[in-house]
């Protein structure tokens, strides 16, 4: 079905869960007023990104009052939000929730934690171990968190699991000032467009803005049609409220026009991967 999604390009405050929750609630109210069906926040929207030793201080259990409040708000609009999740066994995950009709529909824990260059996630966080598609009011979705999307297998698994919409929550730092456009922005734009094309999926990409210790997050949140075409893109560097009118017909037409996913032979893939895995085990 057709639906309207808002990509909330916000600027979270580092380590301030209460402040960020009120930013998030403000955006949710705005999106409801605008008649949107779904609102998508960036990675770690409730905490900020370069948390380091703050991780345990900002972590929330899924039954915390803050998450319960958002679950309640999802009766009016479906919500996707990133946060640090604390589990019963005291592991901390970079997680995203899909909330709808007053319930948690899906929890994704970031699988690929970048730990190189300016990133240090594995030092502070536990790794997720699954990519699962799930059903929503608007069709079958899959969630990726930032670095997850740079692993072909992640999007591929979600598409094989029936997802036709991929949601990516991001906190992508700006770098690369040599070219016509920002280096990290053009890399991401290529990635989301190519992923959409390969998998005949639409992509909803939500990236934050603001600075943390001199590191900028560039925004540019984007809705990509299953053809790979960018339909709407948020502003660079500035806060934004990007409204995407998602057209079901475009998905159907694209899947008729280029049925690569229909023809994808998952069993060949599995057989070959199994062979490679066997070889590596030896």
């Amino acid at each position, binding site marked *: 079905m057709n639906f309207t999604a808002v990509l909330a390009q916000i600027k979270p*405050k580092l380590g301030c869960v209460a402040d960020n929750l009120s930013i998030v609630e403000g955006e949710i109210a705005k999106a409801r007023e605008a008649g949107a069906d779904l609102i998508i926040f960036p990675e770690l929207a409730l905490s900020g990104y370069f948390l380091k030793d703050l991780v345990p201080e900002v972590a929330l259990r899924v039954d915390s009052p803050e998450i319960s409040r958002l679950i309640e708000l999802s009766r009016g609009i479906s919500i996707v939000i990133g946060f640090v999740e604390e589990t019963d066994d005291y592991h901390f995950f970079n997680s995203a929730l899909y909330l709808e009709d007053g319930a948690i529909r899906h929890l994704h824990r970031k699988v690929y934690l970048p730990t190189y260059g300016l990133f240090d996630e594995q030092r502070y966080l536990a790794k997720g171990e699954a990519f699962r598609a799930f059903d929503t009011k608007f069709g079958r979705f899959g969630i990726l968190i930032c670095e997850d999307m740079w692993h072909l297998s992640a999007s591929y698994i979600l598409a094989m699991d029936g997802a036709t919409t991929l949601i990516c929550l991001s906190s992508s730092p700006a770098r690369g*000032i*040599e070219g016509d456009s920002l280096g990290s922005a053009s890399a991401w734009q290529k990635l989301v467009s190519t992923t959409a094309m390969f998998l005949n999926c639409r992509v909803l990409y939500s990236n934050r803005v603001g600075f943390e210790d*001199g590191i900028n997050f560039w925004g540019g949140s984007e809705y990509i049609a299953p053809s790979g075409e960018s339909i709407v893109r948020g502003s660079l560097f500035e806060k934004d409220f990007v409204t995407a009118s998602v057209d079901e017909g475009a998905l159907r037409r694209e899947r008729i026009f280029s049925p690569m996913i229909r023809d994808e032979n998952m069993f060949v893939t599995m057989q070959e991967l199994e062979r490679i895995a066997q070889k590596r085990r030896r």
Partner: protein
Amino acid sequence: MTGLIANTDLLRKLLVGFVRDEVRKVGVSKVVLGLSGGIDSALVAFIAAEALGPENVHAICMPYKSSNPESEAHARLVAASCGVNFSVVPITAMVDAYFGMFPDADNMRRGNKMARERMTVLFDHSALLRALVLGTSNKTELLLGYGTLYGDMASALNPIGDIYKTQVWQLSAAMGVPKEVIEKQPSADLWAGQTDEEELGFSYRQVDELLYRMVDERLTKPELAAEGFDREFVESIYAKIQNSHFKRRLPVIAKVSNRTIDRDFRYARDWGK
């Protein structure tokens, strides 16, 4: 070398945004900086004026008696052309009072003392004006260690510390820094006729080409040789970076507890901002 050619529109937006965001998030609206008459501090003044409004930027020229009078004139020109507040605080009395006790001090000690004297003036004005001190060291001099620890290297925020001198020239031209300032020979102006390039023994353009490949692109020494860089030049720059690394780090703390500051007590400076 395309890597050193910056997209100045993008760079300007990033650096202006950096100053605006990082200054205001600590609950401050003003900045203070030393304006030497040279290009680095001129560029920072232009960036700050655009970020915060020129009325919120205080530029201080701090000449010593041996400083070239042209430097102060250029500092005035820069302040006038970007509209920031300008004052002159000479450091001669303080520096001379000190070296009255150590008349045999060499140029290096005198130069370092001047740089640190200027730092104390800036941080005093930081308290006076409720303004953050902006740093004006570029990536080239930070990597080479061509600056005074706790002197000109001291600041609260540095907008240009990740751009090479070559890029400072490009962005300065794009932002309208006066031509005289862009075109003159870079100098620490510690004594008459001193120029950076003569003192360093190579040109900024030359060393930036090397630094970009060595630091940003991580080319190996054989790869650098294959690109035509002189082995001795490569070795000497590598040694400069290594030997000045202490200037780019916090003081080393002897670890005895479970949580040592910056070792296993790790927080962003923007914690809670």
